[in-house]
């Protein structure tokens, strides 16, 4: 029995230690709580010696207004899970950062608050015309753009020798020469997207026959594929298991940085016959949902995320740039992407790895391509039809 007591004592101690630690850690020295809900790994959080943006905001807000804010930062994994949380009406978030088609849905269902742009002067200052009034928010009343991304094709130059980044087309993903070395998206919208861009059909078509045509195209591609993948794409491309994959530009940079020695990855945007980039674009934008409790602090936070010239604790702080360099997605903030230091950090003009050119391809008109190629929110019936087609495709031998 003595042993058992000793055992219980050890167990209790092990249990209590973190308990005490967490009690001492959660000090209640703040006046306002700001609940921020964002994608995972989508903010500069202090790792890799980066700037901790949320901590900086707390310091800056106190320095500016004398109010102690605690940023409660929380992450989700998909637009759909964000929607589920918000629609339960049982949570309260002050700032959310969904993607375009979901914003479209939120506005339609009156789940967002109109922003007071007087509290967000950096929008006027730093966001150029081409990133405003996009299809999901035509009068730009609800949203402030955060980052955008584009789908491109990443390939291993040791295997794929007949292509340069400037003449990549969607046909590469259907090429017999690289059978069993191609990776396709494992989600219906993106996979159908690749086929529709290839065929020159609108990705927001409401005609079922267009989707059927895309299905036939994907069915023809299936024997050539190594696999349908999502995040396994990192491993398979980095290690040379596969040679061709379509993925988001920012993530392709990650793959290029981490690839093993015998793999030499290159990246290009698929172009149509006239040489224009023809691929998916998405925009993630900051909004304030109707369940928000601290609208003014939330607006200050949004404004803070766009700022480039703050002084916090006597030190200059370029918040937007720190964020853009951490996330590796393109930023719509002109004070960042026009900043020569930022351009240099991304290797602008570098022959070997010009990440700047990857994120901001030269001569690319964002607004025009965006409204043509971005995914809009589709009719639920059509979505059901597409997901049936997708299931058929996956079951195909």
């Amino acid at each position: 029995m003595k042993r058992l007591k000793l055992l219980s004592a050890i167990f209790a101690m092990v249990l209590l230690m973190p308990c005490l630690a967490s009690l001492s850690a959660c000090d209640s020295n703040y006046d306002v709580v700001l609940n921020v809900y964002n994608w995972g790994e989508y903010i500069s959080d202090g790792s890799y010696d980066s700037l901790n943006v949320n901590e900086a905001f707390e310091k800056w807000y106190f320095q500016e207004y004398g109010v102690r804010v605690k940023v409660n930062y929380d992450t989700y994994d998909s637009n759909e899970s964000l929607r589920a949380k918000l629609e339960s009406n049982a949570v309260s978030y002050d700032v959310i950062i969904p993607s375009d088609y979901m914003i479209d849905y939120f506005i339609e269902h009156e789940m967002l608050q109109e922003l007071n742009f007087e509290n967000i002067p950096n929008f006027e200052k730093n966001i150029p015309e081409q990133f405003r009034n996009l299809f999901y928010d035509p009068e730009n009343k609800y949203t402030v753009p955060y980052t955008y991304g584009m789908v491109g094709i990443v390939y291993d130059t040791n295997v794929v020798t007949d292509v340069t980044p400037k003449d990549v087309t969607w046909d590469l993903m259907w090429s017999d020469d690289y059978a069993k070395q191609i990776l396709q998206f494992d989600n219906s919208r993106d996979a159908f997207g690749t086929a529709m861009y290839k065929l020159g059909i609108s990705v927001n078509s409401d005609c079922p026959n267009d989707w059927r045509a895309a299905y036939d195209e994907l069915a023809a591609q299936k024997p050539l594929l190594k696999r349908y993948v999502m995040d396994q794409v990192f491993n398979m491309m980095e290690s040379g298991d596969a040679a061709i994959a379509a993925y988001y530009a920012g993530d392709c940079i990650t793959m290029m940085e981490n690839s093993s020695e015998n793999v030499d990855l290159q990246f290009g945007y698929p172009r149509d016959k006239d040489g224009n980039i023809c691929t998916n674009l998405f925009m993630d934008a900051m909004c304030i949902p109707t369940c928000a409790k601290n609208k003014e602090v939330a607006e200050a936070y949004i404004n803070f995320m766009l700022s480039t010239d703050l002084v916090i604790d006597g030190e200059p702080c370029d918040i937007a740039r720190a964020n853009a360099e951490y996330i590796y997605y393109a930023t719509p903030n002109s004070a960042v992407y026009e900043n020569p230091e930022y351009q240099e950090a991304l290797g602008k003009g570098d022959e070997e790895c010009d990440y700047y050119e990857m994120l901001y391809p030269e001569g690319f008109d964002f607004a025009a391509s965006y409204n043509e190629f971005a995914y809009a929110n589709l009719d639920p019936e059509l979505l059901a039809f597409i997901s049936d087609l997708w299931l058929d495709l996956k079951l195909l031998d």
Partner: protein
Amino acid sequence: MKKNNFLANFYMFMVFFFLFAPIVVMILFSFNAGKSTSVFEGFSLTWYAEMISNEAILEAVRNTLLLAVTSSVISTVLGTVAAYGINKMRSPGVRATLMTITQIPMINPEIITGFSFTLLFVFTGTILHFSETFSFWTMLIAHVTFSLPYVMLQIMPKLKQMDKSLPEAAMDLGCNPVQSFFKVELPEIMPGIVTGLIMAFTLSLDDFVISYFTKGSGFTTLPILIYGEVRKSVKPDIYALATVIFVTVLVFLVLFNMLSTDEDAKAKRQQQREKARARRKHAKEAHK
């Protein structure tokens, strides 16, 4: 015979290989110098340093432990009381029915339990006009609920095994029922309670599905944090963290097993001694 031995060893090896290969790979890559999750670039402790400096991870660890500790303690206390009460019931029919009902959360698919919790909390929140129903407390309620049957399942057999005359003897010797419970019955079922506590703790520690459905703003547990990183590939500092957790749990388990086998061995020795004594006594009597 020898061939048989080889096959047996091979079988053992395969079982352990499939059980531990993924963990070994993960531990290996937590020491990777590079960011890649497929190419090993050399040994380094960067990710361990990274993990310690990552405030989000540390906070998630704190939250997870806080939730696991509180929910396991509460469910152990509740479970002990419930098991004790059910065991004392006279009608076997009622006892069996109650036991079955308490096992429902265990048999129910997690996702259904999680979703019904969401519905319940949202419904209650709407009636009571809460602006924010989900919080640490909703998660705590959910965790206590799903770990309760496991705790009871550990304690019930111990109660059944216990000699019914023990508490009676205690009361004969002047204990009141409360004293008899704390002095005689509780120590007797203690092993069951400890196992139940540990089970509840581990269950709460790695629960994802139910937490996901009942979590509120600002309280993220580790499984939820890791799941949120899926969009941009999990970073190796998570591997480092998983390694630390794995090693801690391993050390703890080994320690626990060592102590409890000690306990078993002691009980066995005691038994043998008693048997021997009885035999001697028997022999003596026969001799007479």
